[in-house]
């Protein structure tokens, strides 16, 4: 009766060691997305229904910052970082080299989440309200309030 028991014991021991060995990756290897960016899509209002459009030379930077996030870049949608030290972030968006720029203001609440020891913390956001100027932007639509590490489209801008 003991022989099959001992065989089972050895087999399970080896399986168990393998299981335990595979559990240590989360300290050294970050396998989840740590990017929590607001997704903004650009849409054309002249068509019914409106469809997404390409801004041919869009320039975007955060208000108060000198460095641009996009410079004369051709984009249908962009993902932008919100200020994690503030509850409000404003972006300057110029659709092309000749048109007037608009400013959009995003007001939100912040919560931090520990993804894993290797990935560390990230900030998740919940958008409370959005405001915009209307030099080129016709209207703005808040599509998804929550911003986490899935990076979906949160705001639709209609030109």
């Amino acid at each position, binding site marked *: *009766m*003991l022989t099959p*028991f*001992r065989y*089972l*014991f050895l087999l*399970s*021991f080896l*399986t*168990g*060691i393998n*299981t*335990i*060995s595979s*559990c*240590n990756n*989360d*300290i050294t290897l970050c396998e989840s997305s740590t990017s929590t960016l607001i997704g903004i899509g650009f849409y054309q209002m002249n068509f019914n229904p409106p469809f997404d459009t390409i801004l041919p030379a869009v320039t975007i930077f*955060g208000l108060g*910052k000198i*460095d641009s*996030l996009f410079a004369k870049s051709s984009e249908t949608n962009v993902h932008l*970082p*919100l*200020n*994690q*030290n503030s509850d409000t*972030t404003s972006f300057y968006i110029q659709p092309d080299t000749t048109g007037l720029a608009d400013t959009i203001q995003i007001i939100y609440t912040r*919560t*931090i*989440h*520990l993804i*894993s*020891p*290797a990935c*560390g*913390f*990230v*900030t998740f956001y919940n958008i409370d309200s959005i405001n915009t100027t209307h030099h080129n932007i016709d209207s703005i639509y808040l599509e998804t309030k929550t911003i986490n590490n899935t990076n979906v489209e949160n705001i639709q801008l209609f030109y």
Partner: protein
Amino acid sequence: MWKIFNCFISILILAIRICHGQQDSGEVKYGLRFGYDISRPILDYLQPNRRDEEFSVDMQVRQNWFAIAEGGWNNSKINNSPKLVYHSSGYFWRIGFDYNLLKHDNINDNNLIYGGFRLGHANLSHSASSFQIADIYWGNVNGSIPLHDVAATWFEIAAGIKIEALKNFFIGWSVRERILLNSNINSQLTPYVIPGFGKGNSKSAFDVNYSLYYRIPFLRIKLKTKKTSSPIK
């Protein structure tokens, strides 16, 4: 006090004799079996950021039924500075029963193949003494989360074997599947490890235990074969 103890022992002996009524005659040893999980030091060697200890005690209470209590503790330290410096410490207990599925040829065979269940509970304290969220555009975020307590309760099913390698000395393994029933985990900071359960970021956990046991046979009961009358032809 002694009268109560004597009464308890008498009832236990009676119950054991009733339970073993259909078995062979002989001497059955009953006692507390103490166990130490040797897989925890191996786990600590493979994962130097954590330290775990786990002990158990069980005793046969009815034929094929074993009452079991398990307990232990965990300490975890993660120094992934500046991203995260984390510390947690806590303890746990589990109580439940195992049922032996192995049919014994004689009453001196103590090997077991068992299935069982447990109810587990853990308390821990943890903190993130410092963390940093990198942001190259707006600037890094630095912060800390002070020490706070977490409690968790879970249900688990277990299956395994125990073999008597030497007299009263057992070795065995078990596999466990745990389901978290209740906890007050803060979504900001999930525990790295819930002691006795597993990783704190999951609602279920699978585990393997390898244990060494020693049984202290404080009770020896002699059993006799029951005489049964022959059917009338």
